[in-house]
């Protein structure tokens, strides 16, 4: 049997008036519904009463009405409130249960992306009420040495600023790690597998900035030293003598002299013939007694003969003079050749010193050249790590900037600022780690690491200090990526009394290793090198105090090098790699070793030069001896020439005297003849004058007689014209 429907409990048969009016009627806003209810209930004293049994239609109506009354009661919607509380509780529960694992995975991925190596985070727990997080172990592998860890952190606790976290900023007030280790060994490789997202787009990063090591520097130094040690005096002497210019000069000079000697010999022979001819020609002339000759014609003929002989004698003497000059010139050439030979020898011997290698040429910073690539080989991997850290730092800042750029309302309006401290999206105010055992004490501190350092007054700094058995290591770094920061990155490293022991191949001076201790002070930093380009700058000072020195062989140079190191007491290495310009590495051993080797080489060189000079002198004497024969020939020729020339000059003088005598004789004879001719001419003139006068007188008289006859005829004619 179907049970009859009952009206809701709100609509009982009897309802107190106060309740009916306040709880029911007041909560029915529609008039018709109130009227409907008034039709069901009637006032009965202090209450309202309805019929006990109601039709189905009324029951259903009352049910709807009860629902509306219930809805119209109260301000909030309890169902939705409950639903909201349930959802919030569910979310909170979800976060409590799953937030830690989710964040753990996310942090691992982030670290792997930043360091490009396997990262493991264990025991990560979010502590929402602190607020903060903690973890048991964090291990980040070294990408360059996969079987070692870059860093290992144990028992760490981290406190967050909840207020900033709500505002979307991760501000870590305190990070405390109970134990911090670097460079620990790994059981499995820390390299990321191929195709890992962290490897995408990172190929070659850091390699470009890496310094190209001069692996051949040590070998070059060793070659230089070997070159010094292998100097062969005889070989150098032979090489130097093969370069001498003297033999060539001598050969050339002697060849020329021989040609001249041949020509002079011919000339001397001709002079000898000429002398004989001159002598025979002169003997006839000289044998004639001039005074005995009274005939002018004979004297003229004799004079003409003497004149011809004088010309021949003069020409012969000129020839003698020419030949003499030629011989003198040849002699001068010989003497010049000897001087040239001497000059060539002097030049040859003086060039020897220049051609013998010196220590300065070969040993330009022998220790520095060997040390430099090894130091840079140690430094370069850390430069790559620094690049990685700075890259992760930049990534953090970039992500922060991108997210901040999308914030802000879309509508117009103004933003009014109020005094406040603005935090970056990520800030690690202070992180510390430290531990102390009986032998080792270390502490690490990281301050003000943030995604936007421009919002902070101090630059991010990191410091690590370790003491172990009296040794001390301090590393302090500043990552100042604030705008206009003069030095974006600066790291200072101080190592004291650190043990050192190594062996090296191809080291100069047969050096193979040492043991001892060293101190290191280094500062590396990034500086602006024009525009936005950043360059690394490194200044480092290393002092190695050797306990034992090992050399592969012994020798003079090795002994001297060893003594230099022992006298120095330490090996001081100063590295200066400026942002622009050449890198320089200096050591305190370079100059002393170079001086020591220079002294050794000077001794060797002096010996070589002395030997070469002696040999050159000996060979010079040999070469000069080759001139003796030519000189003696020249002297003989010169003597012959002088003989012939003397005789010719004597003959010529006699001929000239004879010619003068002939001239005097001819002059004397000419006077007598002239007087006689003059007297004869005077007599003839007188005779002619007498004859002329006689002829003139005769002519005059004849003319007078003719004139007289003529005049008589004229007179006659006049007197007797007819």
């Amino acid at each position, binding site marked *: 049997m179907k049970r009859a429907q009952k009206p809701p409990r709100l609509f009982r048969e009897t309802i107190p008036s106060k309740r009916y009016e306040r709880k029911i009627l007041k909560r029915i806003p529609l008039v018709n519904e109130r009227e409907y209810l008034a039709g069901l209930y009637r006032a009965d004293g202090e209450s309202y009463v309805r019929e006990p049994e109601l039709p189905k239609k009324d029951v259903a109506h009352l049910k709807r009405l009860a629902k509306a009354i219930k*809805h*119209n009661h109260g301000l909030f919607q309890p169902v939705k409130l409950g639903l909201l509380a349930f959802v919030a509780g569910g979310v909170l529960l979800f976060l409590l249960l799953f937030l830690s694992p989710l964040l753990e995975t996310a942090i691992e991925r982030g670290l792997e992306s930043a360091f490009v190596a396997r990262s493991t985070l264990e025991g990560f727990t979010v502590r929402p009420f602190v607020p903060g997080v903690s973890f048991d172990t964090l291990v980040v592998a070294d990408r360059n040495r996969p079987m070692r860890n870059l860093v290992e952190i144990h028992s760490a606790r981290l406190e967050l600023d909840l207020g900033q976290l*709500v505002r979307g900023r991760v501000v870590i007030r305190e990070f405390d790690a109970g134990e911090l280790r670097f460079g620990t060994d790994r059981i499995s490789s820390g390299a990321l597998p191929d195709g890992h997202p962290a490897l995408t787009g990172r190929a070659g990063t850091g390699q470009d900035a890496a310094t190209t090591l001069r692996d051949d520097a040590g070998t070059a130094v060793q070659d230089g030293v070997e070159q010094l040690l292998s100097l062969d005096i005889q070989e150098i002497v032979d090489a130097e003598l093969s370069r001498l210019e003297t033999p060539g000069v001598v050969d050339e000079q002697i060849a020329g002299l021989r040609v001249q000697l041949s020509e002079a010999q011919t000339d001397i022979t001709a002079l000898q013939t000429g002398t004989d001819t001159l002598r025979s020609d002169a003997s006839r002339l000289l044998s004639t007694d001039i005074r005995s000759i009274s005939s002018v014609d004979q004297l003229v003929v004799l004079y003409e003969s003497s004149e011809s002989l004088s010309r021949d004698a003069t020409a012969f003497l000129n020839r003698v003079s020419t030949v003499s000059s030629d011989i003198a010139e040849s002699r001068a050439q010989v003497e010049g050749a000897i001087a040239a030979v001497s000059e060539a020898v002097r030049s040859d011997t003086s060039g020897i010193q220049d051609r013998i290698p010196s220590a300065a040429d070969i040993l330009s910073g022998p220790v520095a050249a060997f040390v430099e690539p090894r130091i840079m080989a140690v430094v370069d991997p850390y430069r790559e790590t620094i690049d990685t850290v700075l890259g992760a730092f930049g990534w953090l800042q970039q992500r922060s900037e991108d997210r901040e750029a999308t914030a802000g309302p879309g*509508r117009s309006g103004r*933003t009014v600022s109020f005094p406040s401290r603005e935090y970056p999206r990520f800030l690690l105010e202070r992180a510390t780690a430290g531990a102390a055992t009986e032998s080792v004490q270390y502490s690490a501190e990281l301050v003000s690491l943030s995604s936007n350092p421009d919002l902070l007054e101090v630059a991010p700094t990191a410091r690590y200090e370790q003491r172990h058995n009296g040794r001390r290591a301090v590393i302090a770094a500043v990552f100042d990526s604030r705008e206009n920061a003069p030095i974006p990155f600066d790291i200072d490293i101080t190592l004291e009394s650190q043990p050192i022991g190594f062996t090296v191949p191809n080291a100069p001076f047969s050096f193979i290793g040492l043991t001892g201790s060293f101190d290191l002070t280094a500062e590396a930093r990034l500086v602006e090198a024009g525009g936005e380009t950043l360059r690394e700058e490194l200044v480092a000072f290393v002092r190695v105090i050797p306990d034992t020195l090992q050399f592969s062989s012994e020798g003079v140079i090795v002994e001297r090098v060893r003594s230099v190191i022992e006298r120095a007491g330490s090996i001081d290495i100063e590295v200066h790699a400026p942002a622009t310009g050449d890198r320089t590495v200096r050591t305190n051993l370079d100059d002393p070793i170079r001086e020591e080797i220079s002294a050794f080489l000077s001794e060797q060189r002096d010996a070589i030069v002395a030997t070469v000079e002696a040999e050159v002198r000996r060979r010079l004497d040999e070469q000069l001896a080759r001139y003796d024969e030519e000189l003696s020939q020249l002297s003989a020729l010169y003597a012959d020439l002088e003989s012939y020339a003397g005789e010719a000059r004597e003959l010529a003088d006699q001929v000239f005297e004879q010619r003068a005598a002939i001239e005097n004789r001819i002059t004397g004879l000419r006077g007598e003849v002239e007087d006689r001719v003059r007297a004869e001419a005077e007599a003839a003139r007188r005779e002619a004058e007498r004859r002329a006068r006689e002829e003139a007188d005769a002519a005059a008289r004849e003319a007078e007689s003719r004139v007289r006859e003529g005049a008589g005829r004229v007179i006659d004619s006049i007197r007797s014209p007819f």
Partner: protein
Amino acid sequence: MFAMLTRVVAALNANRRPGEIASACSFAVLLALLPAGNLIWASLFVLVFLVKVNLGIALLLTAILSPMALLVDGILDTVGYAVLTVPALQSFFTWLYNAPLGPLTGFNQTLVPGALVAGIVLWIPVFFIARAFVQLYRNRLRVRIIRSPFIQWLAKLPIVRRLQGAASRARSIYEWAG
């Protein structure tokens, strides 16, 4: 949109307090004036879901009035700037600005305090006006509208019948959801 209109019509005719619709209108004005995307707006929006206001009317009016709010941005900016620069409130605003949730409220954006002040000031008049309108509709206009020849003719159209059916189902769902 049709469902929204249906819910509005259903709310007007339902056995609900007029204050629910009136407060929905007031909230809608406040939400429309306030720039979205800040904690104040989000809180008010959640509040609308939690208190007994007519959600359909609130959402519909918010959607309608929000574009119109751009027209009064200048006034809201002036009011908001005046509020933010009141000397007596500077310490409070500074505290609020540095409070964890302060910047999330966007209170330092002039439109937010301007709209908040304007919305609160307008809340009560809008509430009473809307409630008076609902009462007027229910007491006088509703019967007249229903009995008007046009509505009678309209009610006989097949499509309107189907719409009525849909509206009835929507109303039942609406009532079930509270």
